[in-house]
């Protein structure tokens, strides 16, 4: 997470780049903790070293200041001028279809899977165990077949 007002040369040479996601106007961020935990917002402006003006019209977050500490940058950027009004942030967000892209990303899918696992009942855990067992059996079976074929080929 680095403030990139001076341009990319400071941190990123063309080939060897440590940081890939930068705080910039329009960067979509994921809120990691706090009252809006789990929602996406767009960084609309930078207030000072620790805070950003943030807005999430399509995700239910009112325009507000938010510390960088609770933001986690995503890969998405929307095209929006700094301090743009909510209407335009919403327009840009919907044009870029951020919500849809987010749902398809593996980050969101992992969060969803974690939630499901946490609410599994004892019976569900049993069913998962049985399903895993069957799956591994099938995989092992196929593997054994291939191994046998390979060993036979050698011989």
């Amino acid at each position, binding site marked *: 997470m680095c403030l990139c007002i001076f341009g990319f040369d400071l941190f990123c040479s063309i080939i060897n780049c440590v940081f890939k996601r930068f705080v910039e106007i329009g960067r979509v961020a994921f809120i990691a903790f706090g009252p809006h935990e789990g929602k996406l917002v767009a960084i609309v402006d930078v207030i000072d070293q620790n805070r950003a003006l943030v807005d999430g019209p399509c995700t239910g977050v009112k325009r507000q200041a938010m510390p960088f500490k609770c933001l986690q940058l995503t890969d998405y950027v929307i095209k929006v001028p700094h301090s743009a009004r909510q209407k335009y942030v919403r327009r840009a967000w919907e044009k870029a279809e951020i919500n849809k892209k987010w749902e398809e990303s593996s980050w969101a899918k992992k969060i969803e899977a974690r939630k499901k696992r*946490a*609410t*599994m*009942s*004892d*019976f569900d855990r*049993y*069913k998962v165990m*049985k399903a895993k067992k069957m799956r591994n059996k099938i995989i092992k079976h196929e593997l054994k077949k291939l191994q046998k074929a390979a060993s036979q080929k050698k011989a």
Partner: protein
Amino acid sequence: MSGARGSIKEGDQKKKARKHGSRNPVLVRGIGRYSRSAMYARRAMYKRKTKAPVTKVEKKIKERAPAKVVKTVGGDKNGGTRVVKLRKLPRYYPTEDVPRKLRSHGIKPFSQHRRKLRKSISPGTVLILLTGRHRGKRVVFLKQLGTGLLLVTGPLALNRVPLRRAHQKFCIATTTKVDISSVKIPKTLTDTYFKKKKLRRPKHQEGEIFDTEKEKYQLTEQRKADQKAVDSQLLPLIKKVPQLKGYLRSTFCLSNGVYPHKLVF
């Protein structure tokens, strides 16, 4: 005092003769002219000494209820009987501001205790037994018995847990439920049915003091019949839910990374 005549006699004598006023003139309010004995003579009470034949009824009323009861007491070498007073002296004399409550105020005998059942446990819930020889087994809850214990069955064919009682505190209630509304549980399954039989008459110093007669549990035909009756209704309901049969056959255990306080049952 000795003023007016008895009102009971008024009604009687109305037919016969007009009632006489008071034969005892008033001197001052509350004081009559004649004394009690003089009035006795003036009213001719000596002529009116009829005694009602009350003897038998009176005798019956006179018999008071017994004040003491002799009760037998079990155990030996304690006299065998106790004398219990039925009309006890009051335990409170109004010298104190508030009557003192007995030390046993509000203490009820076990049979009158209020039985509670956790909200998560309802008929048909799958429970995980935590103690006893069937610990870890998943079992179907049928109903709560009179003493508060839970009536539970394996079913026997799935996990060898028979119709048995389980203690609420030593069960985990899962959220899995079987619809048991159509299952009829025989009315004979009560606490006395399941109570352990004690057949031990200790003959003191007969050599083998610890030789209890009924150490081994004997299966009775009635138990088998009841088990069959309940299980035959339960098993088809269980078979309807996919994988529930295998679930009831399996046992619950903890392993690395599994924390009970984080699990949703």
